[in-house]
């Protein structure tokens, strides 16, 4: 069994909720629907009464069959009327249930999606799209199906109680026999519960694994094809798909055993009642009609009871799904918010004191970083790969949170600022900007919530029509594919720069924004950027000499520390780390 679960580990934020807590939580989703639930219950009792009355009436029919065809006719009419009425109530209940479950799943989905959106980027680095998505859509859907079943079966349990009551009233002895069987039923159901829950949790996890696998292979399909290694990708999928098969078969077989066991128990009880009832009838303690009723009632009784007992296992699937959704909702993102101070506008002075940060459990990138960037200056960050250039930008953008020290903006603790309001004042141009499905104009307008077409046109104007049209042969109203397929990286960098002109942030963070454009376009963009940078604090990660030269100041990062800091000419003349870097790496770009 252990090897079956190989690779089906829980995600880091998974937690175990007790059944009572889970049920309580689920009930809170139903609490707002009290009136509907009450209506449901009335309908359930009504249709249960009607259904329960049918065997009673037939028993009467048998006893009084000598009473003439007239009585028989009336009773028949009653049977039909009861069936029709029960149907109507059933219909109403199902319609209400659909609404109830639909609303509940909707709320759960929204909460799960909100939670996923609130998580910081570090969370999303660790948890692949497929896995998170599986919780937000798949698990909520699975939970919904189980809820529908639950509400349907709740009605069945009421029927059980009613019929059981009537049997007791008719003959307590028979009632006791039936009652004696109940502990066995419950015992079986409970015994299966734990196994069923483990199996259900495994299936939810394996489903997330398949989800993640399919997402990854669709994202990496071009690589697989480029290398002619579709077979490798298929091999990975095949492993996951087979694992999924085994996990699901195991779960299926567990459920395939539960119901027959319960049915067997019920069948044995029927045999006992058959004998005992017959004896009582012979002894005259029961009329034949009553005996018949007891047998029928038993039939009607055990079916819902076994279903309810089997369902208890099935319900574990719903609980397992709900548990995963709740874990996502309850996991707090790690971006610390100490306050919600408003952020109307920023001057953009940035200061770090003793900043500590590391990715996950890895070695710290910064171990006590001190740094000061005056407001409205353009600062170029240089340094080797892995010296922490991008990380610094990500920390300032609050995509990740630092573990210790202070980060101040305009002298205020960033953790005390309203996160969204702060981010609104910060603009980021990443190396590989993401492009969404939608028109080009929509993608540019994405730079600022509420931007319109006029903003987009203005942004293009400010970049320069000549530069723009040369690199963007499509019209602003042409659709771009999701993820930027069919749009080159250079074009995406242009889109990201245009987003900045729409956004008008106070602090701009750029990760070599022209890395993938040709020198001609680069010059065009650089001119546009010069206009953008005016009056804002700018932090640009630079690989190119042209970018470095344009900066007011240069920060040299080395192994997570500021090795040097100052204007270009000063640093060059100082003969320090920057001069060394320059001589080795940038000097040749002067002539290139």
């Amino acid at each position, binding site marked *: 069994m252990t090897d079956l679960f190989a690779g089906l580990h829980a995600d880091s934020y998974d937690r175990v909720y007790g059944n009572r807590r889970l049920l309580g939580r689920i009930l809170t989703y139903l609490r707002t629907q009290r009136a509907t639930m009450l209506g449901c219950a009335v309908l359930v009792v009504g249709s249960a009464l009607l259904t329960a009355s049918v065997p009673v009436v037939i028993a009467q029919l048998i006893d009084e069959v000598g009473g003439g065809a007239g009585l028989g006719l009336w009773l028949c009419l009653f049977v039909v009327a009861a069936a029709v009425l029960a149907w109507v109530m059933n219909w109403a209940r199902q319609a209400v249930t659909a609404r109830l479950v639909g609303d509940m799943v909707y709320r759960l989905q929204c909460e799960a999606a909100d939670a996923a959106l*609130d998580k910081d980027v570090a969370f999303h680095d660790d948890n692949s799209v497929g896995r998170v998505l599986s919780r937000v859509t798949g698990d909520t859907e699975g939970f919904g199906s189980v809820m529908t079943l639950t509400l349907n079966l709740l009605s069945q349990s009421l029927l059980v109680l009613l019929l059981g009551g009537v049997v007791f009233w008719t003959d307590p002895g028979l009632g006791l026999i039936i009652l004696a069987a109940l502990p066995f039923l419950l015992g079986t159901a409970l015994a299966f519960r734990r196994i069923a829950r483990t199996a259900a949790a495994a299936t939810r996890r394996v489903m997330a694994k398949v989800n993640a696998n399919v997402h990854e292979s669709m994202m990496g399909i*071009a690589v697989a094809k480029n290398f002619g290694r579709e077979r490798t990708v298929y091999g990975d999928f095949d492993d996951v798909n087979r694992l999924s098969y085994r996990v699901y078969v195991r779960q299926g077989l567990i459920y395939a055993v539960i119901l027959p066991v319960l049915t067997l128990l019920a069948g044995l009880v029927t045999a006992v009642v058959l004998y005992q009832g017959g004896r009582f009838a012979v002894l005259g303690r029961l009329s034949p009609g009553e005996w018949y009723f007891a047998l029928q009632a038993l039939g009607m009784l055990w079916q819902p009871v076994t279903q309810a007992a089997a369902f208890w296992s099935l319900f574990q699937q719903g609980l397992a799904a709900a548990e995963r959704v709740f874990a996502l909702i309850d996991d707090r993102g790690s971006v610390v918010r100490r306050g919600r101070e408003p952020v109307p506008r920023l001057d953009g002075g940035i200061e770090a004191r003793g900043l500590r940060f590391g990715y996950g459990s890895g070695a710290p990138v910064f171990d006590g970083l001190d740094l000061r960037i005056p407001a409205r200056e353009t600062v170029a960050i240089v340094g080797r790969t892995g010296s922490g250039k991008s990380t610094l930008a990500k920390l300032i953008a609050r995509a990740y949170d630092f573990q210790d020290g202070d980060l101040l903006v305009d002298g205020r603790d960033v953790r005390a600022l309203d996160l969204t309001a702060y981010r609104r004042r910060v603009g980021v141009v990443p190396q590989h900007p993401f492009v969404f499905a939608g028109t080009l104009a929509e993608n540019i307008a994405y730079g600022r919530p509420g931007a319109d077409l006029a903003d987009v046109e203005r942004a293009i104007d400010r970049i320069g029509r000549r530069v723009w049209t040369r690199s963007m042969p499509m019209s602003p109203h042409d659709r771009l594919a999701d993820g930027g397929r069919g749009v080159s990286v250079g074009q995406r960098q242009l889109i990201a720069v245009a987003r900045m002109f729409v956004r008008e942030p106070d602090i701009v963070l750029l990760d070599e924004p022209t890395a993938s454009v040709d020198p001609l376009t680069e010059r065009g963009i650089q001119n546009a950027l010069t206009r953008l940078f005016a009056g804002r604090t700018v932090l640009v990660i630079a690989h190119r000499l042209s970018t470095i030269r344009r900066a007011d100041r240069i920060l040299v990062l080395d192994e997570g520390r500021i090795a040097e800091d100052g204007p270009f000419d000063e640093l060059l003349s100082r003969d320090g780390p920057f001069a060394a870097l320059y001589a080795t790496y940038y000097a040749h770009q002067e002539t290139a």
Partner: protein
Amino acid sequence: MGQTRPAGRAGRARPVASPAVLGWIAVRLRAHRPLLLVFTVAAVAANVCTTLVPVQIGAAFAEATGGRADLGVLAAAAVAAALLAAGRFAADLLSHGSMEVVAQRVKRDVRDELYRSLLAKRMSFHDQQRVGDIMARAINDARLVDYMFSPGTATAFNALLALAVPIVFIASMDAQLLLAPCALIVVFAVALRRHLRRLQPLTMRIREAFADLNERFSTTLAGIATVKAATQEEHERLAFRRAAAAYRDAFVRRGRAQAVYLPALSFAVAMAVGALHSLYLYGQGGLTLAQVVTYLGWLVSLAQPVTLSEQAVPVVQEGLAAAARMRHIIDGPGDLEETTGVTTAVEGAITFDRVTLRHDGRDILRDVSFHLPAGRTLAVVGPTGSGKSMLLKLVGRMYDADEGRVLVDGRDVRDWEPGALRRQIGHVDQEIFLFSKSVLDNIAFGAPPGTAADEDVKRVAKLACADEFVQAMEHGYATVLNEGGTTLSGGQRQRLAIARALLTDPRVLTLDDATSAIDASTEATITEAIERATTGRTTVLVSHRPGQIRRADLILLLDAGRVADLGGHDELMARCALYREIYSD
């Protein structure tokens, strides 16, 4: 505009759950015939056992009311009932178990088939595809296909048996009594057919709404860094709510339609007809009281198939809708890649012969011709958006030219087996995708799993200047990356990708701006490394680094998809204004 991103795509072809889908599923069942036989026999046996219980009850009833009242006969009937329960238990185990295995196998197989077909489709298909929608098909729809069999079909089959067996017994008692069951069947069949027709489009709508929701949120998650940087969480939230509400509305509408389950009413009709009819026959002396009791018992048991059908119908229908969606991809749009063709070793000569490539009615490349002898280097330059990347992708036939021919070693790329051709071309894309595997497995991706020696991996990693930072990682080469490798810097990703491309020692290298994100301190080393790697290989590279361009044997200048000029660096400097404009500071 403001709220900008539309949720779905208009004009998608809709899959329909048609009889063809039934046929498609039936073919997939063929391999599981033995299990299906086990299921059928076991399910029949279970039903027979269940149906014989009323016979025992009837016998006991007759005995108890017959006056003689032999308790031994009563006991015999009770024991028989107990044995029947045990028989049913065994049969149930077999029938449930076998159907469950069939269901899981079918799910595994159709998912496998869907996945294979996705891998076999051309890139032009994948460029258009909505990943979230595909995931919905491969995971959630596939799940519904297994539900369709277990419990769906199993329940439906049991319903049929539960309908048939009592009817057989009733017929054996008195053919006249078939009146009520026959009425039931006719009314039931008509009502069920109507019900299914009404429900079908609503069911398909749910699956589509779910796929839209999945698609919507998978894009949000894939672009989460951009969403956060642009502070567009609110916009994404609203868009998600819209999609979730659409799914809920589809769900509720189907639920309401499902609630109007008219077939269930047919049971009431049957009960009334049956009760009256049997009482009439009893009154006429045609039936004994015991017979009436048994008959009514059987009649009541007809409620079961009706209830069962109510449970089975939506499940089966949803499964069919889901299967139709999966099949829509498998047999549907997007050409499959060829699996046959030339597989010989590549020398490396590349020729473009008047190649034109279009996308969305726009020319990406127009009339591009050049010849690059084996072992030489071609640099493709030109403004952003001039079609450089697409030109590179045509070499490995990732796309098919709309006009003209692309030749490798004088042979049309369409004559090659695509896989064989591509395995001999090392490609580094301008955007690097790494898999959530170890660094080692990522670099060794180009080789069949398990065939690459660790030393080879380290050798190419050193070549690509990746060894140093990989060694510095927590678990070195065993470090598992995240999906896409997004926690690495752009430069680190590019170096791993270069190593990956070099591992199989390909004859041809296509490098699409492969060093754009590599910082200045590594640039000199990597340029050298690339120079070393390209010697002796045919190389087509896109670069914005003047040093790399100048060293190429041939430079192709693209402007808006056309060849603006072709020649050596000095030639172009001398005669081409655009080239000078781009490459002089």
